[in-house]
């Protein structure tokens, strides 16, 4: 059976069905519409949810959201959930150029592409959020999906441009600069972290080449169109009737090829390049999640060191014979002992959560990559089939030259 991928595909579908039955939440982001005029204008997207879960008020509902609403949701989730070692899917980045174009109301191809790119990215962001068992339970998520008018999000300034990645990187650096190094008997975390870093580098490299592919394919479109026109002119100039007709037909075929190249370029970008861009950001989020665990460990260690200091202080007071200060010292020791216990438990819990999250993430990633690549290959396949039809139609014309 050479169709190993088909077999795999079937099991993929089975997995999807299982997932659907337990998570049954479908979100879509569609219909961007311009609201308002001038520099205060913005794009509002339709967010549609379909779910049979009882936590929602109805089975299908729609709200309108703007870009900053999505960023606001991410902010809230980050603050709350990251302490628990959760991997929060990052939203698409702000873009001053793109936004200005939208406000001004340009509808050239690159503006249209920008809008579609953003819409698709917002949709993927939401889909990842709702397919996360923990995040789905978060009331902010429910409010985002259901509430008719959402209070405007503030504090989204930090997420401008490449801000998100910068933020993670800065935090990451700060953590690694901390002098207390973790001494792990279980190397799982360290190994995994290095794996994640390596993979992020690979994806970045791949993204650069795929970007190059997208650009070259766009160049090919332009050059093919120009060539088609030139062929048409040559056909007009040709004085042998049958050859003239064949050359004109060739020009038409090349026009059709240009169309195919355009679609392939879109596929290259929206399916392949954006997948890579998403995962570069997601892997950064995974790194952030590891950092949370390290922070948790720091807190525990610092508490232990504080407890130690308190004990030493108590010993000193015992010598100095100051009874009321001694009482206070004893109270503080109790307090810090409790903290140490708590922080140790927190650390263990975060560790388990991170482990679970990372494994879940890896499963999702494999699924995601497989399904996107299948989509990409399918697009290529269809393109090939159409190509065959074009040339098969041309062949008799070429043969008819006399």
């Amino acid at each position, binding site marked *: 059976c050479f169709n190993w991928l088909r077999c795999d595909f079937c099991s993929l579908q089975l997995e999807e069905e299982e997932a659907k039955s337990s998570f049954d939440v479908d979100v879509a982001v569609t219909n961007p519409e311009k609201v308002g005029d001038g520099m205060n204008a913005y794009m509002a997207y339709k967010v549609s949810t379909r779910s049979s879960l009882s936590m929602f008020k109805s089975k299908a509902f729609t709200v309108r959201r703007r870009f900053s609403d999505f960023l606001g949701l991410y902010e809230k989730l980050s603050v709350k959930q990251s302490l628990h070692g959760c991997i929060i899917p990052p939203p698409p980045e702000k873009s001053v150029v793109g936004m200005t174009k939208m406000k001004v109301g340009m509808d050239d191809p690159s503006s249209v592409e920008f809008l579609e790119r953003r819409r698709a990215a917002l949709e993927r962001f939401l889909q990842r959020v709702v397919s996360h068992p923990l995040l789905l339970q978060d009331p902010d998520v429910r409010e985002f999906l259901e509430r008719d008018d959402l209070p405007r999000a503030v504090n989204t300034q930090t997420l401008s441009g490449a801000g998100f990645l910068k933020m993670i990187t800065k935090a990451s650096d700060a953590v690694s600069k901390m002098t207390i190094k973790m001494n792990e008997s279980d190397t799982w975390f360290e190994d995994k972290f290095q794996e994640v870093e390596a993979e992020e580098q690979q994806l970045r490299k791949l993204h650069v080449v795929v970007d190059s*592919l997208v650009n070259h394919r766009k160049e090919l479109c332009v050059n093919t169109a120009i060539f088609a026109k030139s062929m048409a002119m040559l056909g007009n100039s040709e004085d042998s009737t049958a050859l003239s007709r064949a050359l004109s037909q060739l020009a038409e075929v090349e026009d059709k090829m240009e169309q195919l190249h355009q679609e392939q370029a879109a596929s290259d970008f929206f399916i392949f390049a954006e997948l890579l861009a998403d995962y570069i950001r997601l892997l950064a989020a995974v790194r952030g999640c590891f950092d949370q665990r390290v922070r948790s460990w720091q807190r525990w260690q610092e508490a232990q060191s504080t407890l130690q200091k308190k004990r030493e202080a108590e010993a000193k007071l015992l010598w100095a014979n100051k009874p009321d200060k001694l009482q206070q010292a004893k109270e503080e020791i109790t307090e810090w002992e409790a903290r140490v216990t708590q922080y140790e438990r927190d650390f263990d819990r975060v560790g388990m959560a991170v482990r679970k999250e990372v494994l879940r993430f890896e499963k999702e990633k494999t699924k995601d990559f497989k399904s996107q690549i299948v989509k990409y290959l399918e697009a290529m396949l269809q393109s090939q089939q159409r190509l065959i039809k074009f040339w098969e139609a041309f062949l008799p014309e070429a043969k008819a030259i006399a």
Partner: protein
Amino acid sequence: MTSLDDNSKEKLRSVSVDLNNDASLVIDIPDALCERDMVKFTVHTKTTLSSFQKPDFSVPRQHEDFIWLHDTLVETEEYAGLIIPPAPPKPDFESPREKMHKLGEGEASMTKEEYAKMKQELEAEYLAVFKKTVQVHEVFLQRLSSHPVLSKDRNFQIFLEYDQDLSVRRKNAKEMFGGFFKNMVKSADEVLISGIKEVDDFFEQEKTFLLDYFSKIKDSTAKAEKMTRSHKNIADDYIHISATLNAICAEDSVGVEIRGLLEGRVASDQELKLTELLRYYMRDIQAAKDLLYRRARALANYENSNKALDKARLKSRDIPQAEEHQQQCLQKFDRLSESAKKELTSFKGRRVMAFKKNLVEMAELEIKHAKVSLTAHPIKHTV
């Protein structure tokens, strides 16, 4: 030494047709050696003609020898009424060589596999340039050998037979002709050709057609080259993508399959073929234009001789010489016109057939290639 088997030579030959039909003189280039900047072609001749010393022989020739032959033919008065096959262009390995250099510099930044694949691609490109230059030199000789008049040219025979180095002869030839024909203001030919008062409908039409067609085909050649280059860029991207994917998910079967598919999409010959055809006929049409130019000159000469005769009659001096001169010019012009008409007619037929062959082959290759990549596709489909 690089040998070209008959199969690949057959594939390359769609640029010109009806060559090597005459068994009395069969020429091919079975071998060529590439040394640094120079290509040494082995020109092999099989003949039944008694004008040659042996029935089967080979000689080594350089590109400059071909140019010498072409130029002597162009500068031969007798052949003024013929379309002289365009000279083969100089072998140009600049592009793959430059890329090889860049690849060497970038070796450190890529994986071993990537480097190996890129190197393989470049070697294939190098080989393609090599094959192309052999083909174009071969076709030049075959056009000569299949021409009723040119095949009998003495210099052509020398070129085929002379087993010493031709460079001595080449130098002598340069001194003899001084290359003055080429140094003449070539740009004047367009003006001359279009300015002439044409009495013959055939030539009027040919002139209009050739001038217009030349500019169009020149444009098409340039645009085709750009398009082909884009295809090549994409093919190179696929190699890099493939190598990087391999590094990420070597054991992942999806990665392997997508790589296989992507590699199949490497730019293939079809677009290249069309570019080759256009480029060849652009040069051929230039040769046809050169013929028209020579005819226009002959006509101008005849008209001048008429004026000279009138002047002589007026002055009652040197009339017999003037009459003689005028007669010669007229004869020359008539012979040239007759020959040119035949040449241009057969040229048209040849060109149309060559286009047909090339376009059919190109379409068939596109279909075949796409079908192959479909069956190799891992995802089941219904066609």
